[in-house]
């Protein structure tokens, strides 16, 4: 029920944003980001309520992960809107809000069971909590980078492209270390503690590494003049596509150790 209200708030926020973006006079809407904040608070409340019921931090299945991921995106968009003065931010906010809505729509679908069940033995680890939460916080930054990169490729105005390129870079530069710590470092430590093998070349592990390699390549394209701009933007888009494939595609197309999330 709380998740449904949060979902409705995200839709309301996106509609308000769209209305203001479509108006002729360039006026930034004054309140859609507060609706995003309210949605984020409600989604975090869902996580807390489920955590109390299972007596463990509720990030142990697809539904709970998507709720946390959407909350992280909504909260981040609120903070970006408050801090950044860039004129492109309302467009980025709208695109990223649509991504958060899509993620919650998947959470509400039958592919993400909603039963409140305590975790199986392998998942009862504090390393897992760090692994999952930091991965999704890092990926929330990648969502913004993805929208910026698409907007960059579509934009014609030179100044706007420059500012979008910079925003893509800063979001990846912040998200990358958080994602690295969560997905790879804490993931490896958890795997070692649970199974005695810090790396098993399980499909999900391999795809997380592939995603990390793409973002690593992105950060290095900044140093090569020929790669800056279009190549960088394409890598930011591919990186996000791989992030989503690692989360969803591997679960349904490739079998492995991570069959529960």
């Amino acid at each position, binding site marked *: 029920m709380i998740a449904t209200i949060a979902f409705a708030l995200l839709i309301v926020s996106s509609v308000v944003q769209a209305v203001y973006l479509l108006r002729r006079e360039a006026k930034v809407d004054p309140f859609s980001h507060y609706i995003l904040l309210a949605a984020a608070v409600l989604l975090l409340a869902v996580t807390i309520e489920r955590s109390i019921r299972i007596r463990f931090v509720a990030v142990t299945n697809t539904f709970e992960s998507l709720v946390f991921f959407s909350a992280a995106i909504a909260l981040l968009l609120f903070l970006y809107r408050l801090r950044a003065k860039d004129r492109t931010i309302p467009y980025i906010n709208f695109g990223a809000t649509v991504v958060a809505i899509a993620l919650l729509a998947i959470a509400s679908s039958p592919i993400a069971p909603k039963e409140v*069940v*305590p975790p*199986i*033995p*392998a998942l*009862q*680890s504090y*390393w897992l909590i760090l692994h999952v939460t930091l991965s999704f916080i890092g990926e929330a930054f990648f969502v913004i980078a993805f929208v910026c990169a698409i907007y960059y490729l579509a934009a014609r105005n030179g100044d706007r492209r420059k500012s979008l390129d910079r925003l893509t870079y*800063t979001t990846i*530069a*912040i998200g*990358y*270390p958080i994602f*690295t*710590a969560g997905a*790879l*470092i804490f993931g*490896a*430590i958890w795997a*070692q*503690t*649970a*199974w*005695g*093998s*810090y*790396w098993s*070349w399980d*499909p999900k592990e*391999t*795809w997380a*590494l*592939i995603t990390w*390699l*793409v973002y*690593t*390549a992105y950060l*290095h*394209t900044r*140093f*090569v003049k*020929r*790669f800056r701009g279009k190549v960088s933007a394409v890598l930011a888009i591919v990186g996000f596509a791989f992030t989503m494939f690692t989360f969803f595609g*591997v679960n349904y197309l*490739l079998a492995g150790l991570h069959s529960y999330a």
Partner: protein
Amino acid sequence: MSALYRFFRSVRLAVVLILIIAVLSIVSTLIPQGRDPSFYFHSYGAFWAQLFLILNFDDFFHSWPFRIPVGLFFINLSVCAVDRFISRRHRRARRRHGPDLIHLGLLLLIIGAMVSVAGRRESFVYMGVGEEIQLKEKYIIRLVEAEYQEYEDGRPKDWISTVAVLRNGELLIPSYSIEVNKPLRIGGVRIYQSSFAREDRALLLDQDGISSTITNGRGFEVEGGLIVFRGIEGKSAVFERWERRTRTAVYRVGIGEPIAEYTVGDLGSREVSGLNAVKDPGFIPVVIALIIVGAGLTLTLIQKGKDREL
């Protein structure tokens, strides 16, 4: 020599190698790993199966098509790390130690991973309560108690194996509970709680009355094939007959009834704990590498924040 140095210090080479490794890794997830050669012939046809097996794509991450780009990346990363250090000394450029730490950590990570590949040893064993296993030369692990906890819906809640450890015959650790996510560390080896299972046993008597015990999953040879003991169902032992790779018959045999040249003398079951002993000399270097990478990433963020680049 300087041309080779310039080639390997190139960031463009780094980007290209990173993307090559990424693409090769994608290919590896599309081809099932570690299967029997017949699987590849059956699934992909003779041409592709032979190509995969020649290129070692069935064990991709140990194959040369993967090792060569990783090796080149290792050289590239080493040269870049050294070059950054030298050029900063010459040009008195702004000191950015974050990326240096990340590069150093990644080099150590690759070395640690290679040590793991070469030196990691793993051994799995099912143990019943009261049984002992010898670990290295001086340690003995004795299973004192095995507990399987379930949630109300029947899903596993915890597997706990309480063990005692003896060194040179003397009690070293009187009691330690090995649980999932809580391994026992002893003499450089870690022992992990891996699984719990029911072990079925059948006592078989041959024509001379000599007895032998068989556990589920094990079998014995007969003319033209193999008889495998699958387990106990009700009051009967279930055996399967396999000829080459095909199951040709299933037999349900009660106590006192024959199976091939044997007679089933007795049937019984017990709970066994699945423990996995792992020795990995590469793990410590990998942990140190991960800490260095983590420190480098944090430092980079702080430095960029100070420089208002973010």
